[in-house]
């Protein structure tokens, strides 16, 4: 007879609990509110099964690293290129007009990234002593979620990165971003971009479909209408602690609603 946590258990149960200890040590629980991309955290992604009839959720590192690289090379690669996101416009040709680094993966290694909300910062100029706007800005973080949905899917592209130091293979991925809608133009006003949020039908097509390059681009450009999103301001500790705490900022100007109601988007695949 053995004891586990002071409780009597059979030897077989004891062995199973010890095996579970190892599994718990190796497993990163995916229940944090916010994944800060610049920490290259583990996240849940969906990849298609080989027969493309179903998908499985696997753990992957946010921050795309292609092929074989040492850990130091991977760090340098991510620092140089910031591969947390891919622009839907640059899937085939890079901004400098060269072959895109995403090209092969966009055709054969598409995935979905599970999200419950996104965090972006609104930049508001500081006011000088004479009441003038300064170049320096204050960042106000917002959490943006999808109305009536506990979670949603973002299009992703993944790669199996072989760490040449250890031989370890790690799935890494990037998230698709598109042109901001009217709400996100105000929230993420420094970049005017937003993550591409897919309908369930488009998410399935992205993952399972045998798609032309044009269709891949079309899906990756999807812009969710502002009226389907909810937002709130949050306190800045989300960055370090990974938790969402709502916080009001009385000095912060309201988001303008009138544009949201009249919004027309180039790539609105959500319909009415």
């Amino acid at each position, binding site marked *: 007879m053995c004891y*586990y946590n002071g409780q009597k258990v059979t030897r077989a*149960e004891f062995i199973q609990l010890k095996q579970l200890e190892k599994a718990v040590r190796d497993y990163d629980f995916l229940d944090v509110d916010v994944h800060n991309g610049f920490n290259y955290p583990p996240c849940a992604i969906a990849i298609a099964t080989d027969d493309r009839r179903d998908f499985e959720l696997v753990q992957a590192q946010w921050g795309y690293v292609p092929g074989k690289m040492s850990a130091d090379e991977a760090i340098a690669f991510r620092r140089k290129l910031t591969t947390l996101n891919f622009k839907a416009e640059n899937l085939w040709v890079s901004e400098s007009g060269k072959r895109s680094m995403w090209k092969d993966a966009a055709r054969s290694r598409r995935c979905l990234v599970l999200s419950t909300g996104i965090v972006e910062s609104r930049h508001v100029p500081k006011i000088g002593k004479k009441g003038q706007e300064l170049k320096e800005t204050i960042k106000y973080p917002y959490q943006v979620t999808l109305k009536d949905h506990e979670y949603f899917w973002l299009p992703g592209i993944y790669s199996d990165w072989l760490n040449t130091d250890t031989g370890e293979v790690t799935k890494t991925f990037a998230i698709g971003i598109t042109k901001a809608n009217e709400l996100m133009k105000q929230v993420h006003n420094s970049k005017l971009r937003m993550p591409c949020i897919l309908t369930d039908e488009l998410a399935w097509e992205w993952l399972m479909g045998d798609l032309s390059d044009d269709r891949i681009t079309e899906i990756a450009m999807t812009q969710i209408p502002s009226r389907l999103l909810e937002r709130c301001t949050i306190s800045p500790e989300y960055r370090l602690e990974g938790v969402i705490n709502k916080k009001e900022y009385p000095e912060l100007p309201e988001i303008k609603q009138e544009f949201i109601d009249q919004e027309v988007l180039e790539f609105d695949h959500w319909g009415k």
Partner: protein
Amino acid sequence: MPFELEINGRLLKVSEHELAGKRVFHVNFGASVKPLVITVAVAPGGKKFWTSIPQGRQREATDIGKLIAEHIRAKR
């Protein structure tokens, strides 16, 4: 999906996972306390009890495990 439980006025976030063939619950107390992982183990004779994984936090496992069981029963 994750759910929340209140214990001693404190809100805990709980998520369910399957690991090594066992159903485990990850309990997040916030930034100040280390998260707790608990599961149901079986004593000789078939009696079930909650235990922390790894060992060392049995009292918390027992108290929070009861609340999780109540939460799951209430959802059925």
